[in-house]
């Protein structure tokens, strides 16, 4: 939904994925697809085409009515039994997307919300149980105040507009991160949204706001120290399992993402879910977040389903 980093001056977004001239990989593997060159080149016509499609699909209350659309059927190339249980996404590239179109940054974030909506629906349809999105990093508080205020108000608007749909569709919403830095009105909205959806079990959307992986471990450590101080646990009892139980991802049955997707071509994790990413498969894609669609997601899942996960052992 939101770019988790500030803008950079490196123009990489219009570069098309192509084989390296040195025959070596230029980064984490991204399968080359000629179709992407036609639809996702960032050209004005490509953008107009995508926006028209979005307008056609969105109903007046802002909810996609593509729930029964065959376009959302699980592609034949993917196997349902190999779907990841938990997908994490770093939604990067909103501001760059807006700049490419000569629009203000806010338009990029709004476009990012639409991408997120679509992804939530697709995940529900395709049997993925948990989606965690990196909406706002703890490190993002250094951004200009105007942008922060816009983002906070965007969060509020989205929660208000989507909460009924979440309740109806059986989607549980959880928010992780240091909520003490959020405006009080947003804190209350978040709390109410979590409370009213906590019994839902069809799908879980975890939104990381004011979150950092290091902060998560430190707050777990504080909690453990408190329990040790009160005599609830002994210091010798502190192990990996105890830390896992104290991390903010203890709100889900599947705390470890199977797949992490980062858009906009950046090849790093940026302090997102550090502990939980121990054996997560990474997929980096050049597409900017507002342009990330079913095709990119299918590509990521196809790549995931082909990987051999050994967890340090040996595949027999």
């Amino acid at each position, binding site marked *: 939904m939101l770019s988790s980093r500030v803008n950079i001056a490196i123009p990489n977004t219009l570069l098309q994925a192509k084989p390296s001239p040195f025959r070596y*990989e230029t980064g984490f593997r991204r399968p080359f697809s000629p179709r992407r060159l036609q639809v996702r080149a960032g050209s004005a016509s490509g953008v107009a085409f995508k926006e028209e499609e979005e307008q056609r699909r969105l109903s007046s209350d802002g909810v996609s009515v593509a729930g029964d659309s065959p376009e959302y059927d699980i592609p034949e190339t993917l196997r349902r039994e190999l779907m990841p249980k938990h997908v994490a996404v770093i939604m990067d590239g909103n501001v760059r997307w807006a700049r490419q179109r000569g629009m203000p940054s806010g338009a990029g974030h709004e476009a990012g919300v639409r991408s997120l909506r679509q992804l939530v629906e697709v995940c529900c349809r395709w049997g993925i149980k948990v989606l965690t999105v990196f909406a706002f990093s703890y490190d993002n508080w250094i951004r200009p105040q105007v942008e922060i205020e816009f983002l906070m108000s965007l969060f509020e608007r989205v929660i208000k507009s989507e909460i009924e749909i979440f309740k109806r569709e059986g989607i549980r919403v959880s928010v992780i991160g240091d909520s003490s830095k959020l405006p009080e009105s947003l804190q209350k909205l978040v709390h109410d949204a979590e409370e009213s959806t906590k019994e839902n079990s069809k799908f879980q959307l975890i939104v990381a706001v004011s979150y950092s992986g290091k902060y998560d471990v430190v707050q777990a450590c504080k909690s453990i120290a408190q329990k040790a101080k009160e005599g609830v646990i002994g210091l010798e009892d502190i192990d990996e399992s105890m830390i896992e139980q104290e991390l903010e991802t203890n709100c889900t049955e599947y705390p470890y993402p199977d797949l992490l997707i980062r858009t906009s071509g950046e*090849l790093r994790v940026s302090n997102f879910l550090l502990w939980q990413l121990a054996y997560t498969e990474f997929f980096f894609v050049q597409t900017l977040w507002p342009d990330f669609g079913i095709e990119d997601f299918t590509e990521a899942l196809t790549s995931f389903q082909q990987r051999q996960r050994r967890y340090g*052992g040996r595949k027999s």
Partner: protein
Amino acid sequence: METQIGCGANQLFKRVGTFLRKCLFRVLSVGEIPNHIAFILDGNRRYARKHNLAVEAGYRAGFVSLLSILKYCSEMGVKHVTIFAFSVDNFKRRPHEVQCVMDLMLEKMEVLLKEENVVKQYGVRICFIGSLKLLSEPIRIAAEKVTKATAKNTRTVIFICMAYSSGNEITHAVQHSCIDKLENHSQARKHAKTHDDVNECVEEHEKEGTTMVKLEDVEKHMCMRVAPDPDIIIRTSGENRLSNFLLWQTDSCVLYAPAALWPEIGLWHLVWAVINFQRYHSYLEKKRKQLILPQEQFFTPTISSDCCKQTLKR
């Protein structure tokens, strides 16, 4: 006679190659050279299978590649190199394979100890990071000897992660942070003379942060605090995951995963990784300075836990 000419030609090619490589590194050094590169040496067994060799041969080929890469890093001016030699999770592998790796490590450490002068000439300091108590005694002893023998070298520092996992490292840091804070808490209570003073003392300590866990407290107990955070992580064989390696330290590190298997890694992979790093460096540096996070707090504590055995000095 022909053999002599062949040898002479080889020597010439080697020297020309070295000269060209140094020119290339000079060009690269116009931009920022990474201070710390970490490697996940993946693909040795697949390499052996690919060439119909025994697993051991794959690891030996991997060792040859390792030496080349270390040489290139040193020539390029990379000050710190970390290699993920063996994970705690790797003990789940077949006993024969585990033994292969252990035997190879012991063999190479013994060679290092014999060739101490060569190592000194390159100015390489070697440190071992991980739960070394999980390793056999001969390997532990050899590791201690290698660390001691290379302690005075200063040009390049190589961290060899053995029996390492980030989960273990972070757990150890959390445990010791809790120990520290509990000790501070009980000191606070001891200093108080009356019952009323106890609460006041504890509150005062909490305000100062001596009894509350903070980020710095966790970081100071990390095994890898003796090195700056990596600038690049390179994992070979095309696998796109960290596998419980340096999770804490790689939050803003560039990740690079060439498809080549580890024994196939070459100079160009390294060069490409550095070029990619240089593209992002100025942005990442600017962001790092904006954040109020202790990025370069490495100092010289005495390491008192099972996680790391040696005391490292700057």
